[in-house]
């Protein structure tokens, strides 16, 4: 098979042509697309708070008075409730 191109390209003829990229024109394009069923098909992002890469999460249900006390203590010290649970876990491990 010959390695020589069967046609040559005139690079000067490959010119940039200005296209309308304004939000208004894109809105018209999207509307035209929707009329023909060309709609948004990208997967929706997962709703809700994304998992933190830094901390983990426990799913503890406790009695209402314990929940209130943890919430109050965290509020008083100005820390997250998780800090109280972390300290409680350290005490549990060292018991």
């Amino acid at each position, binding site marked *: 098979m010959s390695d020589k191109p069967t046609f040559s390209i005139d*690079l000067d003829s490959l010119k940039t042509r200005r296209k309308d990229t304004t939000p208004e024109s894109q809105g018209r394009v999207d509307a035209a697309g929707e009329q023909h069923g060309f709609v948004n098909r990208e997967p929706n992002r997962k709703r809700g708070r994304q998992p933190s890469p830094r901390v983990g999460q426990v799913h503890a249900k406790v009695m209402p008075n314990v929940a209130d006390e943890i919430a109050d203590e965290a509020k008083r010290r100005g820390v997250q409730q998780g800090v109280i649970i972390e300290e409680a876990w350290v005490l549990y491990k060292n018991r």
Partner: protein
Amino acid sequence: MPIVTVASPKGGAGKSTASIILATELAHAGAEVTILDCDPNRSISIWADRGTLPPRINVRSDVGESEIVKTLKQQDADGRVVIVDLEGVASRLVSRAISQADLVLTPMRATTLDATIGVRALALIEEEEEALGRAIRHAVVFTMTRAIKSKQHTAIEKSLRGQGVDIITPPLMERAAFSALFEFGGDLRTMPVQGKMEPAAENASAFAQAVYNRLVGKGL
């Protein structure tokens, strides 16, 4: 920078194969070519990872509907061609890519189903021309055709021509070498022999030349 958007809402019509053949042949003839892989199936990226990319070709993957217009604007440069390969689906990404095109290429197998679904892309182009107030050049290329034209092929071609649709000749024939691009990567010159290489290369080159002529508006 001419932008060629390869679009059909029909899957399996030969969009990615046509994109690779067009890119590799234009690059072989001297053009700088960028392929935007906008298909979540990542067919172009699979091809790119299979072997060494031919000279003057680069590939960008994972371009979604929110980035397509901006990405095409960033690629803007004289003397190069951008080819946008899209998923076979009717999506907003497709309509946005069409809005930025200098030429929309709709690959179509010569079957009634492909033609019926493929025509939806042509209807959208007409609508976008009206919305943007500019003509968007478009053409159909038949893919996976056989040496002897079927009656169905003849009838579909006649019907499309009757509606004023531009049809690229030659069509892309069914060739082992074309499908093997996804096995070996690279281009028709670098892959091991697959069937009849010489006719496959001639077909690919003539197809790319027909597209190039449309991009520069000559020999039509």
